[in-house]
């Protein structure tokens, strides 16, 4: 390899060559608060074992291997090993149900899946519908279960711990994240190894990391933040990461921040809003003197969270904005820039956002417009898998259309207004109304359904389902629960409706399209406006 573009190598072997072999790359804190340190040398050799194992199994560069794992230390070695081998890593939330799995693994033509015994049950349900899936690697069984369900511990123990990383070029595919659109199935967003340049540059520009810093990104690895800033950027920088296996609990989180001397925290507004629900006194007992900066991503950061952070945590909270498609932070509030609470901040160096009116002419300062980005930054997505038309539709000339609406003030700060489509942003996760509707329609009690997002104090937006029942069905709490459980288990917990409204009929236009603006008005108790296009 003359030039090292391979992300897996840059995050491991290159770090060892730079003299960081004995430095802790990952401090893993278990739910029982037990620590496990993994050095860069160990991360390198373990990910090499992964790469060798995948190659030994006949997987060729360019094939797709999906990670379907909860938060465990294995995630990091597996992810980096897949990339080292020149394979493409698809990420999946461990909460996904069989339908969500099928959509993604089928569209992505997954050749292999790395998972655990618990999740194998969900995978088994859909495996017959996945002809490309050759092998499933289990991280938690000592022996192979069958010819195609094999033990990773056994294979890794047998595999070599050296590996010559695949000579990736900047445009070599690296990672696929699935994201939801307002119509159709989730789209596979294809990223490339060259994305590292943007991820590392933005990491430096926004986080101002120092070599001895401890950094904690709380995002799940299945989310773009969890890979771009929870694996790639910090390891490629040579930083020590802290990760915690458990869920949110303010006492535990702040004791980890204190005891592990976390300097940089990257989390989400929903988490910060949950923190705000506890008494201020909880936080005052902790020594947060090592904590230099707090950052947020996923949903707009309400000004009240910013003010709460200053008052209670004695820290400013910096909002950052990017998308699965952008691969790295595009616009941010960051140290050195005066924070305007509630704003997205200003664009990073080299990033050129534009605001466009409906006719694609430039919006004036202060006017709301479609937020676009002049294409060309290295971490820009390169395709929606199998959907070239959908990919093209995201561009107007060389402007990538983000689907967000925003305005810019006279001083250059951007302000998020909302989505330009029907996608629901709930706790930082994009949920497709179509996916939820399809799942609910599987139940015999549901004659028709329309799904919208509605404002929520904790989640930013919540999923709301309008249901037209079949004549034999009767609405009850039990039925509501059954519908929620169905969506949660078949699609994903993040897609489960938080609220239901029972209606006689779902409003549709004459071409049969759900009139979501009418549903939104109904939900808000407002006048639905012009209904002339509604079907009879």
């Amino acid at each position: 390899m003359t030039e090292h573009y391979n992300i897996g190598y840059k995050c491991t072997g290159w770090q060892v060559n730079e003299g960081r072999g004995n430095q802790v790359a990952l401090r893993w804190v278990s739910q029982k608060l037990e620590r496990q340190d993994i050095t860069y040398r160990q991360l390198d050799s373990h990910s090499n074992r992964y790469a060798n194992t995948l190659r030994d199994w006949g997987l060729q560069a360019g094939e797709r291997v999906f990670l379907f794992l909860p938060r465990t230390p294995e995630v990091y070695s597996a992810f980096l090993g897949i990339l080292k081998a020149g394979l493409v890593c698809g990420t999946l939330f461990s909460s996904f149900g069989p339908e969500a799995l099928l959509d993604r693994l089928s569209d992505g033509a997954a050749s292999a899946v790395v998972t655990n015994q618990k999740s194998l049950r969900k995978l088994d349900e859909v495996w017959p519908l996945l002809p490309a899936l050759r092998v499933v690697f289990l991280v938690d069984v000592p022996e192979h279960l069958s010819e195609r369900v094999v033990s990773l511990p056994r294979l890794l123990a047998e595999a070599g711990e050296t590996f010559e990383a695949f000579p990736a070029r900047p445009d070599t595919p690296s990672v696929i994240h699935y994201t939801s659109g307002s119509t159709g199935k989730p789209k596979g967003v294809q990223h490339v190894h060259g994305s590292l340049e943007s991820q590392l540059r933005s990491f430096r520009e926004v986080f101002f990391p120092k070599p001895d810093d401890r950094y904690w990104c709380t995002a799940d690895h299945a989310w773009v933040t969890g890979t771009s800033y929870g694996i790639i950027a910090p390891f490629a920088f040579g930083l020590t990461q802290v990760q915690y296996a458990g869920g949110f609990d303010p006492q535990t989180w702040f004791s980890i921040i204190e005891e592990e001397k976390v300097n940089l925290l990257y989390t989400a507004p929903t988490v910060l809003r949950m923190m705000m629900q506890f008494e201020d006194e909880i936080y005052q007992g902790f020594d947060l003197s090592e904590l230099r900066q707090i950052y947020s991503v996923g949903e707009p950061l309400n000004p009240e969270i910013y003010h709460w952070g200053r008052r209670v945590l004695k820290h400013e909270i910096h909002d950052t904005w990017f998308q699965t498609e952008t691969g790295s932070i595009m616009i941010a509030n960051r140290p050195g820039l005066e924070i305007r609470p509630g704003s997205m901040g200003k664009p990073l160096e080299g990033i050129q956002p534009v605001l466009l009116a409906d006719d694609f002419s430039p919006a004036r300062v202060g006017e709301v417009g479609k937020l676009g980005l002049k294409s060309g930054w290295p971490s820009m997505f390169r395709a929606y898998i199998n959907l070239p038309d959908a990919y093209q539709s995201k561009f107007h000339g060389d402007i990538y259309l983000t689907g967000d609406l925003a305005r810019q003030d006279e001083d250059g700060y951007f302000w998020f207004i909302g989505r330009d489509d029907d996608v629901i942003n709930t706790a930082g996760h994009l949920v497709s109304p179509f996916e939820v509707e399809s799942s609910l329609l599987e139940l015999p009690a549901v004659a028709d359904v329309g799904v919208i997002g509605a404002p929520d104090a904790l989640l930013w937006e919540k999923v709301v389902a309008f249901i037209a029942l079949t004549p034999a069905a009767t609405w009850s709490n039990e039925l509501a629960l059954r519908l929620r459980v169905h969506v949660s288990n078949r699609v994903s917990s993040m897609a489960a409706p938080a609220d239901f409204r029972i209606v006689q009929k779902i409003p549709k236009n004459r071409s049969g399209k759900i009139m979501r603006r009418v549903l939104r008005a109904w939900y808000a108790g407002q006048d639905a406006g012009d209904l002339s296009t509604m079907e009879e």
Partner: protein
Amino acid sequence: MIDFDSLNEVFVMVFQDPEIRISAETTADDIDGWDSLSHVILISAIEDKYQITFTQREILRFRCVGDMLNCINQKLS
């Protein structure tokens, strides 16, 4: 007073896994699919079954199934 068997039925229904066996020490890490969002569904299922209402703070303070069961029994008593 309710016991673990009674509460287990709710877990089996919500996570659609007949093999679930909860104990006082069971946490989200032990149950496939139990994350912060499915937690909301679990809570509403428990509220429905036992005709109780949890406060947001109570919900956020549950660290294991034992905490949950204690809180339910306090409300029922």
